């Protein structure tokens, strides 16, 4: 590991050195001069940030890339072998036989496909709803934002109690009024993921609502007035003024919510433990690396996720940024 870290460091230093050297040469050409003392202070000021970023951001990324092609095991760090694409072959085999990875991909896909439109739609509705000057708007906004304030861990545990199949569980005790038997919602193979979707959208949408709200205030009022004069209905106003005005906000929110949804992990981890019907990609990756100690295989999953998320994000950027 130390050798890897050193070589990465040397590579980074070399890249930096060339950029710096080019700068110095350029400066000479244009007869500018760098003040030595100023450069020294600048490098000293950058040092803590660079050191921390190197250790905790750059190294994990590079290691993750490198481990993906090895059989690295957490307990035998010195017994490391380069095995080429074998990890990926193993992963595809796992998908082929419908193993855990297959379920993880399906569950993550369900989660992303449901939560992204639901959360963004809900946030947009709430933002439009609170985008008027009436008494009490602020109270409503505070209510919508409350779930954001309590952390993901707390909300997960809270919803475990809400969905609990015992007498104090909120939902089951409501249903028991109608004479229904208590249901263990999170153990239902078909619907457990949907409860996690609901809970996540419920928890997160207040945050996006605020961002939408600040986007809405940036749309000029006279546009709406002009449209009213031309006899446009409220739906037309929404379609032709509000939505285009929110374009950049929408792009930002879509990408952040999408990337966040792809990484979903805490909710299934705390709400159901490692179960086939709720395991997600990130959770599978974590379990492989931390639970089964197969760091190499886990890094291969991470690499695949990075590539897929990166491509989809790029497409979203291109699609939403046009005009």
């Amino acid at each position, binding site marked *: 590991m*130390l050798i890897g*870290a050193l070589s990465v460091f040397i590579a980074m230093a070399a*890249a930096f050195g060339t*950029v710096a050297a080019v*700068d*110095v040469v350029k400066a000479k050409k244009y007869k500018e001069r760098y003040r030595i003392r100023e*450069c020294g*202070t*600048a*490098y000293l*000021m*950058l040092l*803590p*940030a*660079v050191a*921390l*970023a190197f250790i905790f*951001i750059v*190294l994990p990324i590079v290691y*993750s890339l490198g481990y993906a092609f090895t059989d690295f095991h957490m307990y035998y760090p010195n017994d490391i072998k380069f095995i080429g694409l074998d990890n990926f072959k193993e992963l595809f085999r796992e998908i082929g036989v419908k193993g855990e990875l297959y379920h993880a991909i399906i569950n993550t896909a369900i989660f992303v496909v449901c939560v992204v439109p639901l959360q963004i739609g809900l946030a947009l509705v709430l933002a439009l*709803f*609170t985008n*008027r000057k*009436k008494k009490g708007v602020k109270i409503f906004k505070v*209510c919508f934002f*409350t*779930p954001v*304030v*309590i952390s*993901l*861990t*707390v909300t997960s*545990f*809270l919803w475990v*109690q*809400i969905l*609990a199949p015992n*007498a*104090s569980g909120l939902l089951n005790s*409501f249903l*028991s*009024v109608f004479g229904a038997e208590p249901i263990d919602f999170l153990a239902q193979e078909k619907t457990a993921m949907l409860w996690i979707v609901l809970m996540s959208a*419920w928890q997160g949408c207040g945050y996006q609502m*605020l*961002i939408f709200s*600040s*986007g809405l205030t940036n749309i000029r009022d006279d546009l709406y007035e002009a449209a009213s004069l031309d006899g446009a209905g409220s739906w037309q106003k929404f379609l032709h003024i509000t939505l285009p005005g929110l374009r*950049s*906000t929408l792009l930002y929110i879509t*990408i952040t919510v999408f990337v966040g949804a792809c*990484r979903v992990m805490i909710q299934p*981890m705390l709400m159901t433990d490692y179960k086939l019907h709720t395991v997600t990609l990130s959770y599978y990756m974590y379990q492989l*690396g*931390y639970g089964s100690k197969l*760091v190499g295989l*886990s*890094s291969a999953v991470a690499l695949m*996720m990075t590539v897929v998320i*990166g491509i989809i*994000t790029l497409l979203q950027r291109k699609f939403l940024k046009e005009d």
Partner: protein
Amino acid sequence: MTNTSYAIGAVTKTVNKPANGKKKALTVIWYVCGALFSLLFILPVIYMLAVSTKSQLAADRARGIAMFFPDFMNLNTFFSNYSKVFTAYGIWRNALNSFMYAAVAIVCNILVNGLAGYAISKLNFPGKKFFTFIILFLIIVPVETSIIPMYMVVTELLGLQDRATVLGVILPSCISIFNIFLFIQFFQGIPGGYEEAARIDGASRLKIFFSIILPLSKPIVATVAVFCFIGVWNDYLWPMMLLTPYPNMMPIQAVLQTIQNIEGVTTGEIMASLVVTSIPIFVIYVVAQKYIVQGFGSAGLKM
């Protein structure tokens, strides 16, 4: 005086308008919808608060609307779950840990990222482009860092063990590329005149940073501090991975899981621990509202 006249003015204004039946109906519908929406978001939280004050028996027996109210028959045990969580389960120790980690992380975060932002935005040195490129790259590209290699770095490469494991929890939250980016954005808006005046007086760059730049940047410093606190307080997985062998050093979020697994824990006690965990963040949101909204504004910068 001004208040009353304003109020009167407002009243006359509404009275002057022709009463419009349809508009009034719409307003009523709007309020009803708002109330329903709000209930949807707030009821689970009220349920959490209510159950946290009940014994297991009362929580099991409550039906219908009573689920959202404390047990009025037994108000003398209102805080018994809380006292148990604090004394028997010792959650105050973990809360204290969380506060300490957050304090250290906030100070380091501002110093480390602020200094880097200052150097990049105000000083002239060869190789500056290298840093700006890396910062933009790391901000835009969604890298699935995978927490596992990070764990390997801390345990194997740095070899942090025993008490030093705390460093592995705190240090990663001291660096934030996005915060560097925020600082650069803000510092670029500070006119160079301030600095030149100080330089003529013979102040060093470091002194300028602490006595001029930082005081001028209070809004951004506050925003970074608030978000850093929320981040550290709400972090669950990372401290959990590192500190499992050292329960005494665990932050509060990680200990929630431990409380869930205690033999014979009641629903009320679990809820009480959840409430205790949420209170500091709630207070922060109320006190630092201004800076949090500013943070949202700067979130848009990211694109």
